[in-house]
C-alpha cells in the first residue's frame, strides 16, 4: 500500500527504496536485540519489520516489478489487485468472523466450544493453504494477479497470475463455507439454558446473519471461479465473447459465445453480500462496546435485530447496482436502484439505534469506546456517500472513480477497521487477562482518526473530478485530472503517517503481553456471559467452569440491583 501511494504521489520517479527497505530492517534488528533481553514476543515483532524490509528489497531487485525503484504499470496493477484481495479475504473477514466470531461467540452464548471443533480446524487449515498460495503468487514468474479484486472477464482470463488467484480463492471460499456451517449450528444448538433468541447479545445476531451470507453468497463465486479456471486452463468460453480482439488480434483459441456480463453477475452476487459480511460483525462489536461503556441498555434492541435480519435478506437482491454501466438495461437498473434504496433503511435504523443508545448514558471514554464512537460518524459518511452510487443517473458519472474508493474505504477502513480495533482493545483482557495501556491507546486512536480522514476524504474530490481509480500514474496524462493531482501527495503523506501511528498499537500489544499487569475477570463491569461467567482468560477446554444459566436480556445496565450499575446475564435479580 505504501508503495502504491508513493507511485500515485510521485509517478515515474524512483522510490528511495534503500530508505524504504533499510529503515524497517534497521528497526527490526534493534527491536530484535532489545527483545532478546526483554521477552520473546518483542523479538517476533522484530522479524515482522525485517520481513517488510526484505520484501521491498525483493520487489525493487526484480526486473519486471520496479527496476531501479521505478514502478512498472503491471506491478502497480498487481499491488492494487492483491491489496483488495488480501484486505477483504485474508484480512477483515478472517479477523472479524474467524477470530472474533470463533473466540467471543461461544463465550457469549455460554457454549463450551464451537459445535464442530474438527470442522473448525479444517476450515482454518484450508484458509491457511489458500492464504499462503495467494501471498506466494508475488514470487511466481508471471507475478500476482493484475485484474483487480473483482477479476473482471475477459481481461482476467487472459492476464498472467490469475490461475493462482482463482485456486486460492476456491480454498478461501471452502474455508468460509465450513466456518459458516459451524457458526450457524453453534448459535442455534449450543445456546445455554435460558439464552433465548431475544436475550442473545447483538454481536451474536450480527454473526448469525453474517454466517448466512457467507453460506449462501460464497458458492456462486466458487462456481464462477471454477468457470474462469476452465476458461484459463481448458480454453472454454464461458466469459469469452465471440470475435474478441486483443491488441489488434482476434483471439483464436477461444470459440466464443460466452458472456463477460455473466462473470459480473456471479461475482457481485457474492460480493455485495460480502460488503455486509465486512460491516455486520463490526456493527456487532460496536454495539457491545457502546452498551458497555454508556452503562445503559442498547436502545431498540428488537429493531436492531429485525433490521439486521432484513439487511441480510435484502443484500441478496441488490448486486447489480455495481453494474449500471454494463448496458444491462433500464428496467434492471430501476429494479436494482429501488432495492438499493430499500436496503439503506435497515442500515439507518441500526446506526440511529446506536446513536440514541448514547443518549443519557454515563459514558466512559476509554480506548475501545473512542474507536466505537468514531465508527458511528465514519460509517455514516461511508453509508451516505453510497447513495449517489446506488442511483443509476449519478453512478454513471461517479462509477470507477476515486469517489467509489473513498466511499467503500469509509465503510471498511474507518468503519470496520475502527470497530475491529475497538474489539481488540475491548476483548484483549478477555484473551490474555491483561489490560492494554490507555495512554498508548489514545495516541493510537487520535493519530488513526485524523490521518484516516486525511487519506480518504480527498478521494471524494478527486472522484467528483472524474479521476479513474485504476490509473497507475494517478491520472497525469488526463487534462481533467490536473487540478486535483496535488491531493495525491496529501493522501500519500497521510497514509504513511497513518502507518506510523500504528506503531504505538504494536508496541502496546507486545509490551502488555510481556509486562502488563493481570486484571480481574470482569474488568469492564459487563453483563454478557463472556465476562461475567468465565474467567479471563477462559478455561482452555470448555470455556466455563460450570454451565452458566441466563436470566436476563443481554444489556441490563443501570438497574442498581445488587448495589452495582450492571446485572450480569447469569445473575438472578434480587428484590
Amino acid at each position, binding site marked *: 500500500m505504501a508503495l502504491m501511494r508513493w507511485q500515485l504521489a510521485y509517478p515515474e520517479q524512483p522510490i528511495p527504496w534503500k530508505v524504504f527497505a533499510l529503515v524497517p530492517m534497521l528497526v527490526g534488528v534493534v527491536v530484535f536485540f532489545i527483545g532478546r533481553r526483554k521477552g520473546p514476543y518483542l523479538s517476533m515483532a522484530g522479524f515482522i519489520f525485517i520481513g517488510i524490509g526484505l520484501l521491498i528489497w525483493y520487489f525493487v531487485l526484480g526486473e519486471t516489478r520496479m527496476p531501479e525503484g521505478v514502478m512498472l504499470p503491471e506491478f502497480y496493477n498487481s499491488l492494487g489487485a492483491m491489496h483488495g484481495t488480501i484486505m477483504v479475504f485474508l484480512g477483515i473477514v478472517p479477523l472479524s468472523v474467524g477470530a472474533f466470531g470463533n473466540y467471543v461467540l461461544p463465550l457469549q452464548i455460554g457454549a463450551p466450544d464451537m459445535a464442530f471443533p474438527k470442522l473448525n480446524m479444517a476450515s482454518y487449515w484450508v484458509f491457511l493453504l489458500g492464504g499462503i498460495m495467494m501471498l506466494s503468487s508475488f514470487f511466481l514468474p508471471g507475478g500476482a494477479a493484475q485484474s483487480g479484486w473483482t477479476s473482471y472477464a475477459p481481461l482476467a482470463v487472459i492476464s498472467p497470475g490469475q490461475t493462482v488467484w482463482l485456486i486460492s480463492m476456491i480454498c478461501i471460499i471452502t474455508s468460509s463455507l465450513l466456518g459458516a456451517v459451524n457458526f*450457524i449450528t453453534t448459535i442455534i*444448538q449450543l445456546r445455554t439454558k435460558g439464552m433465548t433468541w431475544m436475550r442473545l447479545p447483538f454481536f451474536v445476531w450480527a454473526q448469525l446473519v453474517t454466517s448466512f451470507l457467507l453460506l449462501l453468497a460464497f458458492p456462486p463465486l466458487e462456481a464462477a471461479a471454477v468457470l474462469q479456471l*476452465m476458461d484459463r486452463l*481448458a480454453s*472454454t468460453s464461458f466469459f469469452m465473447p465471440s470475435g474478441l480482439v486483443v491488441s489488434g488480434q482476434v483471439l483464436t483459441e*477461444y*470459440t466464443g*459465445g460466452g458472456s463477460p456480463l455473466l462473470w459480473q453477475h*456471479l461475482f457481485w452476487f457474492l460480493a455485495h453480500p460480502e460488503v455486509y459480511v465486512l460491516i455486520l460483525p463490526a456493527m456487532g462489536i460496536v454495539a457491545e462496546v457502546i452498551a458497555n461503556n454508556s452503562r445503559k441498555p442498547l436502545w431498540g434492541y428488537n429493531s436492531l435485530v429485525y433490521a439486521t435480519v432484513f439487511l441480510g435478506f435484502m443484500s441478496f437482491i441488490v448486486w447489480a447496482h455495481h453494474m449500471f454501466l454494463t448496458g444491462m438495461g433500464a428496467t434492471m437498473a430501476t429494479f436494482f436502484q429501488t432495492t438499493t434504496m430499500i436496503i439503506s433503511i435497515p442500515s439507518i435504523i441500526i446506526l440511529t439505534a446506536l446513536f440514541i443508545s448514547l443518549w443519557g448514558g454515563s459514558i466512559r471514554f476509554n480506548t475501545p469506546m473512542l474507536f466505537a464512537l468514531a465508527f458511528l460518524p465514519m460509517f455514516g459518511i461511508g453509508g451516505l456517500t453510497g447513495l449517489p452510487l446506488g442511483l443509476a443517473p449519478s453512478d454513471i458519472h461517479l462509477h470507477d472513480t476515486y469517489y467509489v474508493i473513498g466511499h467503500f474505504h469509509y465503510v471498511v477502513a474507518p468503519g470496520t477497521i475502527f470497530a475491529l480495533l475497538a474489539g481488540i482493545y475491548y476483548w484483549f483482557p478477555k484473551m490474555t487477562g491483561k489490560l492494554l495501556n490507555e495512554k498508548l491507546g489514545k495516541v493510537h486512536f487520535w493519530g488513526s482518526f485524523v490521518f484516516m480522514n486525511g487519506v480518504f476524504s480527498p478521494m471524494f474530490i478527486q472522484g467528483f473530478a472524474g479521476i479513474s481509480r485504476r490509473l497507475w500514474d494517478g491520472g497525469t496524462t488526463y487534462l481533467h485530472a490536473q487540478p486535483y493531482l496535488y491531493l495525491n501527495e496529501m493522501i500519500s503523506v497521510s497514509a504513511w503517517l497513518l502507518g506510523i501511528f500504528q506503531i504505538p498499537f504494536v508496541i502496546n500489544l507486545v509490551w502488555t503481553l510481556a509486562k502488563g499487569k493481570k486484571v480481574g475477570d470482569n474488568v469492564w463491569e459487563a453483563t454478557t456471559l463472556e465476562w461475567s461467567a468465565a474467567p479471563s482468560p477462559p478455561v482452555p477446554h470448555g470455556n466455563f467452569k460450570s454451565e452458566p444459566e441466563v436470566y436476563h436480556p443481554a444489556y441490563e445496565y443501570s438497574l442498581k440491583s445488587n448495589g452495582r450499575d450492571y446485572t450480569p446475564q447469569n445473575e438472578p435479580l434480587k428484590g
Partner: protein
Amino acid sequence: MEIPYTVSPRPDTGIHNGKLGIWLFLASEVMLFGALFSTYILLRTSAIDWPLGSDNLNVPLGTFNTLILIISSVTMVMAWASLMMKDFNKYKLYMGLTIFLGILFLVVKIAFEYAPKFAHHHYPSTNTFFGIYFVLTGLHALHVLGGILVNGYFWGPGSKMWKKAPQQFINRIEIAGLYWHFVDLVWIFLFPTLYLL
C-alpha cells in the same frame, strides 16, 4: 464441559448438531449448483444457436445412470432402515450395494460417456454447450466420488462405531444419506436439462 447435542436432539430445536450442519451445507450446495444452472440459462438464452442435448449426448446411457442413482438412493434408505431395526448384516449389504451403484454410475459416466466424447473431439472448449456440460456433470461426478468415499468409510473401518455408539452411528448414516439423496436430486435436474431439453 462437553459439547452438548452431538448425538441426542436439542429439545427446543428438535434436531442434533450434525443434522443441522448437513442441511446448512446442502443449502450452500444448492447455491453452488444454482449458480451453474443460472450460467446454463444465461449462456443458452444469449446463444445464437444452441446444440440440442439429445443430438450430442447419449440419452439411453443417461437414462440408465438416472435409474442407477435413484436405485442407490433407495438402497441408502434401506441401509439406514436396517440399522434402525438393529440388523447390522443387512446394513452391510445395502450400504455395499449403494457404494457399488455409485461406482457403476461413475464407470458409465467416464468410460462410456466422457471417453467417446473425447474420441469424437468434443472437448469443453468445443463450444459453450460442451463447456457447461462438462463442468456441471464433472462437478456432480466429484460429488458422487465424495459420497462413495464417505459411504465406503462407513461401510468399512467406520462401521466399528456400531458396537460402541449405535445411536451416533445411525445419525452418521442418516447424514451421509441426506447428502447422497442430494447428489441424486442434482442429477435428476441435470439429466433433463442437459440431455433432453
